Structures are given as structure tokens and as C-alpha cells.
């Protein structure tokens, strides 16, 4: 069954492109995606650009409201997601724990709605 893994972290805690650990860190991400793909569990996934590039849209009383920024202002921001297809919650939790920035931030794991 499908689960979405939503990655939230404080970007200031993660290795930056100019730093010494960055290459190794990127290697971890590549290995992770490859591991998911190898068992046929990877349905989708993307890294998102920074929270400063976000725009939020709401429609209220028929009017469209556009604001600069993410829908919740917080230190931990949504950085990306994975959509995986695995047997059960325990499998999804195991994969969530292996995500490279799980040690800096939080991964929310939620089953995808199955419409009959």
C-alpha cells in the first residue's frame, strides 16, 4: 500500500553546498532512492526548493488570496517527499528512518487514501 513520507527539517542544520560534508550527504540521498527503486517501492519523490520560494494560495468568499511564504511559518519546513509502495506501516517507518535528513528533522508518514 502507498504511503507518503513528508520531510520537514530546519535547513540550517543540514550540510550546505559549500561545506565539506555535502558530497557525502548527496551520496546518501542517491543511495536511498536507489535502494527504494531496487525493491520496486519508489512511486515518486522530489526535493523542494527552499521555503523562501513558496507562495500560498487561499480562496475565501470567492476571492483568491495569494501570500508570500509557506502555509505555516516554522523553523522546520517541508523540504521534499517520497511516495512509496510497501506492505505495511512498519515497512514505511523503517524506510522513513533511513531518509538522510531524518536525523536532522522529522518525517511524517501517512497512508495514501484508497478510493474504492
Amino acid at each position, binding site marked *: *500500500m502507498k*504511503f507518503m513520507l513528508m520531510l520537514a527539517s530546519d535547513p540550517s542544520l543540514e550540510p550546505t553546498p559549500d561545506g565539506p560534508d555535502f558530497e557525502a550527504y548527496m551520496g546518501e540521498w542517491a543511495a536511498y532512492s536507489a535502494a527504494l527503486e531496487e525493491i520496486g517501492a519508489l512511486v515518486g519523490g522530489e526535493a523542494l526548493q527552499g521555503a523562501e520560494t513558496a507562495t500560498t494560495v487561499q480562496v475565501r468568499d470567492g476571492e483568491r488570496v495569494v501570500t508570500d511564504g509557506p502555509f505555516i511559518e516554522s523553523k522546520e519546513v517541508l523540504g521534499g517527499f517520497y511516495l512509496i509502495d510497501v506492505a*505495511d*506501516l512498519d515497512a*514505511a*517507518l523503517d524506510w522513513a528512518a533511513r531518509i538522510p535528513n531524518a536525523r536532522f528533522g522529522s518525517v511524517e508518514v501517512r*497512508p495514501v487514501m484508497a478510493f474504492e
Partner: protein
Amino acid sequence: MSSARLDVADVFRDEWPRLVARLVRDVGDVGLAEDAAQEAFVEAARRWPERGSPDVPAAWLLTTARRKAIDQLRRSKRLTDRLADLVVVEDGASVADGAETPGDLVDDQLALLLGCCHPALSFDAQVALTLRIVAGLSSAQIARAFFVSESTMTRRLTRSKSKIRATNLAFTRPDVATLHERLPAVSAIIYSIFTEGHASANAPTLVRGDLCDEAIWLGTLVHQLVPDDPEVSGLLALMLLIDARRATRTDEHGVPVRLAAQDRTGWDAAQISTGITTLANAYGARRGGPYQFQAAIAALHATAATFDDTDWAAIVRLYEVLLARQPSAVLGLNHAVAVSQRDGMAAGLRALELIERHEPFAEELADYPYFHSARGEMLAALNRSSEAVSAFDQALAACTNEAERTHLAVRIRELSPPNE
């Protein structure tokens, strides 16, 4: 069918978790398994008094429950793939086929217990599920145990089962790693049920025996399923040893009686003996842990002829081991009380002052009635009556248990100078 009048209630205790565990394996859905088991027992309660109880109650219950599950699956489109498997089993099975190997029985019940204590569920949900799914308590009984309305408890159970279904939370035979990872949570849940039963924060009485019984029953089950885990044994021993004193902890009016004043002839000697044997077996594993240490303390109390004969030095040492592993306000308090017995009241008061000065504990202790009443008792023993009274006043202010409050009021009266 046997003509012997075997009551459904007699078999419910042992057969409920076995039945639910087996059904979870058969149908793969906890809610469905629970409903089918419930209906099977309801039918047993109707049929057995009329026709006599079956020779093999477990097989009868399993067959009946499976039929109920099939009916339910036919009505629900959601689980139709399970239906095919189940019907095959049903057609091929005879009544006697309900038997499974003892190993299967253990694995299924462990799967059930560990599933109820999955970290994806909140602690409250884990407790409620364990009591409902493993111990077979009704939603109403659990609600009463935790002082919430029945509808709140039903909602809590329903939401947990929804999450279990939505996430396909597995109730499968645990591997060794999962078992060892999850056992502490299982123990914590059982111990929290016992603690509520042993010294209730909210009930009008101090001791709620039924909850202690449930906790001990659960602890015994886990011990049977995992006989080699020393902390599982330690927990069971701890509960047995503490509970052995149940009859003497309150007087006929429900007022708490201090350990020093309890009539030790009223302690359950057989239960103490079982507790000590269980603890001794745990030591064989040579892996100490908090439940074992706490049980050792309880054993020292349980085997002392009188309060004064108690090996307080050993108890002080055990509290120090516990504090070194995981300091807590309550442990610090118990240690100080033991120190007061070993070294005298003045030393005890100094020990109390020390923990009070420890920042993280200060706030917790301020709200903890036993901290203040312990100080009160030490001061009273030193004839510092007015200080003792203000300590008991603080205890009263922090205390929510009716029976305890009555006891504290009595102490205050005893120590206050009579009015002119």
C-alpha cells in the same frame, strides 16, 4: 457435547486472547476479529447453559467465530479477498481442527500483545487496546477504570482501530529484535494499569483491586509467553509482591494504613512466595533492570517480620542503584525514606532537602503529596509538631485521592495542639 456445566465465564479469561489472536491471523483485521470473538462468546453464553458446554471449548469458539467473521466479510465489500481464504479453511476444517501447536498459540498472542503496544499508537490508546483486545474488558469497564465517559473510550478504541486498518499496522509474529524492542512498552503499559489499581489518583478508594488483578493477569500472560526475559519476570514479581499486601493497606473504612502499621499476618504468603520464586528465576539471566531492582526492594519488605526488622541498608543500596540508572523524584523520595530508617530521621530530612534542591525534581515534588507527608512523618517523629502539621497541610493541598485526604486530615488533627 458434555453435560458438565462449564460456565462461559470460566473459560472467557484464558480463551478470549487465544481466540482473538487466532482470528487476527485468520482474518487480518483486529476490529473484525474482536467483533467475531465477541459474538462467539455471546452465543456461547446463550447455548451452553441449554445444551451443555462443548468438550473442546476453544474449537467450538473458533468455529463459531469464524462463521461470524465470514458473515461479516460477506456483508462488507472491503475485505472480500480475505473471505476466499477463510471459506476454504472453514470448509476443510472439522470441529477438532481448532487445535494449533503451543508455539503457534504463543506467537499469535505475542503478536496481539505487541500489536496493541505499537509506538504508532498513543500511550492511552495502547492501554485501552491492550485491556480490550487482550484482556477482553468491555469499553464500559475500561472507561470506568480511567475515569472517562464510555463514549470517549469507545471513540478512542474506534480511532485506534481505524488507524490500525488505514496504515495496515501489522499484528504479525514478532521477530526477536521487534520483541525485545517492544517489551519495555508492553511492561510500561501493564505497570501503569497496576499503578492505577494500587494507588488510584482519582478513585474514592485508595486501592482498586480489579485493576491490580488485570495487570497481574496481563503480566502473567507475558511471562508465560516470554519466560526468559528477566525484566518481564521482574515486573510480575514486583506486582505480586506489592499486591500481596493489598488486604492490609487500608482499614475497614478505606483509610490508608502506613507500612509500619500494617498487620503482616494479613499479607498473602503464597503470593509472596510466588513473587520471590519468579524474581529468583529472573536473576538466572544475569541481566539486571529496574523492575528486578524494584521487586528486590518489595521482596525485602515482604519477607521482613516487622517494619523495624527490615533490611533498610540493603533497600538504601538498591535505591541508589536505581537512582544511578535513572534518577527520578519518586525514587529520590523513597531513597530518603529508607535513609531515615537506616540512619535516623534527621538524616532522612537532609536526604529530602537534597532532592528538593535538585532543580528538575523541585516542581514535581511540590505537587506530590507523598513527599510532603514523608517529611511530615519525619518531623513528627522528631517531635517537631508544628512543622509536621504544615508539611501535612501541604500534602493535603496536593492530594486528590479522597481516602488519602481523610488520612492526612487525621494526622493533622493528631499533631495539632488541642484548642483552649
